[in-house]
């Protein structure tokens, strides 16, 4: 058995009062962070409260003091994002409403003008719907073709099979960093290197990586990297598209409106500098500041430390789940992060979800917005327990007890 969890866990947990409640008369065991992670109640300094109580005004617009303070907080958060993902420049950090909008932005602004019939976009079989449907839409618009790299029975993308698809017809490769349904971590830096040897740009859906791994854009060398605030302990409605500056420069705006322009005239309008060219309209100021505050909070713990802690906890969860008779683990890749999908006997995942909820255990059940993955494993859905650094072995033990109770209830 691995060592006891580090003492800090108790301290981290205390930052999340939401976890200190009873649900259905049992202590809450929150194992659904992959759907949406809980937010620390207090970040110090409390940047969001400062902004809301003292500094609110529109950003980039006023000469008055409040607008300057709001702009400083909003742009300060962008600096935090740049540091957190090690981007070369703050111009490469575009705020979006989330991963979904970031991917749609790339599909419509980068791909659509470049695609013609006969061109291809390559994805993998383990993608979330938000890294499938935007490409289906742009393929429909342009006559391009969407090709899907296979995934093996453990839930891994086999690099050779993927590389075979990367021929001269491919205009973009779009892959997850971490699979939301299976937990598989893809070797993204290797994949990017091979794609770049063939002059193929790469988009990475990092929604499930940002909460768990230390991110380094300059080492991954991705062309586009998308992630969401609420999956990484920040607010909903805010996310980030990282993109290489040269690509953003060459891309037309996706949405038009205020703040994304330099000059508007009826005989021609000129675009604002990066990244503002892609941020039309009054943005989610509080969301961005909240994301920045969360990043500062995470930096105080250290993503390396979080990754190491979660690796231990995932190993513990996997081995405890494996001990349960009738357990079928879905997604057994060698490299995984923080997610385990499973089926228990022939109990439908939705029934499992209800039974576990009665024990205060919150898991996700269903297709996890990854229906092609479910088809691949021949199941209509799975139960999925997902971990964050605020989870403990006690949480895993409660999950296991509740699963035993489900078996008892359904025993013939």
């Amino acid at each position: 058995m691995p060592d006891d969890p580090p003492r800090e866990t108790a301290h981290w947990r205390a930052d999340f009062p939401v976890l200190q409640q009873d649900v259905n008369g049992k202590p809450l065991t929150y194992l659904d962070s992959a759907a949406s992670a809980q937010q620390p109640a207090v970040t110090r300094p409390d940047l969001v409260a400062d902004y809301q109580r003292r500094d609110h005004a529109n950003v980039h617009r006023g000469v008055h003091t409040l607008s300057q303070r709001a702009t400083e907080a909003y742009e300060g958060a962008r600096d935090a994002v740049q540091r957190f993902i090690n981007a070369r420049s703050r111009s490469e950090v575009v705020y979006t409403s989330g991963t979904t909008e970031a991917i749609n932005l790339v599909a419509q602004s980068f791909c659509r003008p470049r695609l013609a019939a006969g061109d291809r976009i390559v994805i993998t079989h383990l993608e979330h719907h938000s890294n499938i449907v935007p490409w289906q839409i742009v393929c429909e618009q342009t006559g391009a073709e969407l090709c899907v790299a296979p995934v093996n029975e453990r839930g891994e993308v086999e690099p050779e099979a993927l590389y075979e698809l990367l021929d001269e017809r491919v205009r973009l490769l779009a892959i997850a960093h971490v699979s939301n349904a299976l937990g598989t971590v893809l070797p993204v830096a290797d994949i990017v290197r091979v794609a770049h040897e063939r002059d193929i740009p790469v988009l990475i859906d990092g929604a499930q990586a940002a909460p768990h791994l230390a991110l380094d854009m300059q080492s991954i060398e991705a062309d586009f990297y998308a992630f969401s605030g609420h999956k990484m302990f920040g607010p909903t409605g805010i996310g980030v598209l990282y993109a290489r500056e040269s690509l953003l420069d060459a891309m037309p705006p996706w949405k038009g409106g205020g703040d994304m322009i330099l000059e508007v005239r009826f005989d021609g309008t000129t675009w604002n500098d990066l990244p503002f060219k892609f941020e039309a309209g009054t943005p989610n100021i509080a969301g961005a500041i909240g994301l920045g505050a969360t990043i500062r909070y995470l930096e105080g713990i250290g993503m390396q430390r979080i990754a190491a802690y979660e690796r231990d906890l995932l190993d513990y969860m996997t081995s405890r789940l494996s001990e349960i008779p009738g357990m079928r683990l879905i997604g057994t890749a060698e490299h995984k992060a923080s997610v385990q999908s499973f089926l228990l006997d022939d109990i439908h995942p939705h029934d499992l979800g209800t039974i576990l909820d009665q024990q205060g255990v919150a898991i996700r059940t269903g297709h996890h917005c990854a229906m092609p993955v479910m088809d691949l494993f021949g199941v209509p859905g799975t139960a999925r327990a997902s971990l964050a650094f605020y989870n403990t072995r006690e949480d895993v033990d409660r999950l296991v007890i509740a699963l035993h109770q489900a078996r008892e209830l359904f025993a013939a």
Partner: protein
Amino acid sequence: MNQAATTGDDLRELYREVILDHARSPRHFGPLPGATHSARGVNPLCGDKLRMYLLVDDDGRIADATFEGSGCAISVASASLLTETVIGMTTGEAQAYFAALVARLSGRNTEAAAAVELGKLRALEGVKEFPSRVKCATLAWHALNSALENDDQAATTE
């Protein structure tokens, strides 16, 4: 071991023996050759997918009913109980029954709904404590209703 103490009375109410029995061994499961009506029921939240088949005779009476598909214990048991319940009913009776069941399970009981004798379907009443599962319990019934409604006359002539 005292299971009620470990798993909770509400859960025992939800997963009554009759529900578990029908979920494990659904009755009238499979396609229905010669069906006059059929409709799909899909619950995208949990992936329940059912197809309901009905054979309505010339007198507007449901002579046979089957279903196929996959779903959670509640939706499969409900579909199975449905087939047992509606065979022999007129289409009008089946639709009145549908309306009463939906009203009672979703906590919008009316006098008309209360007047309908639910019989075996009382086993489904445990879902009232689980609002997220009411859709599972009523899925097959919605499919039955749309199967009947899609036919211009049969649903309303009674």
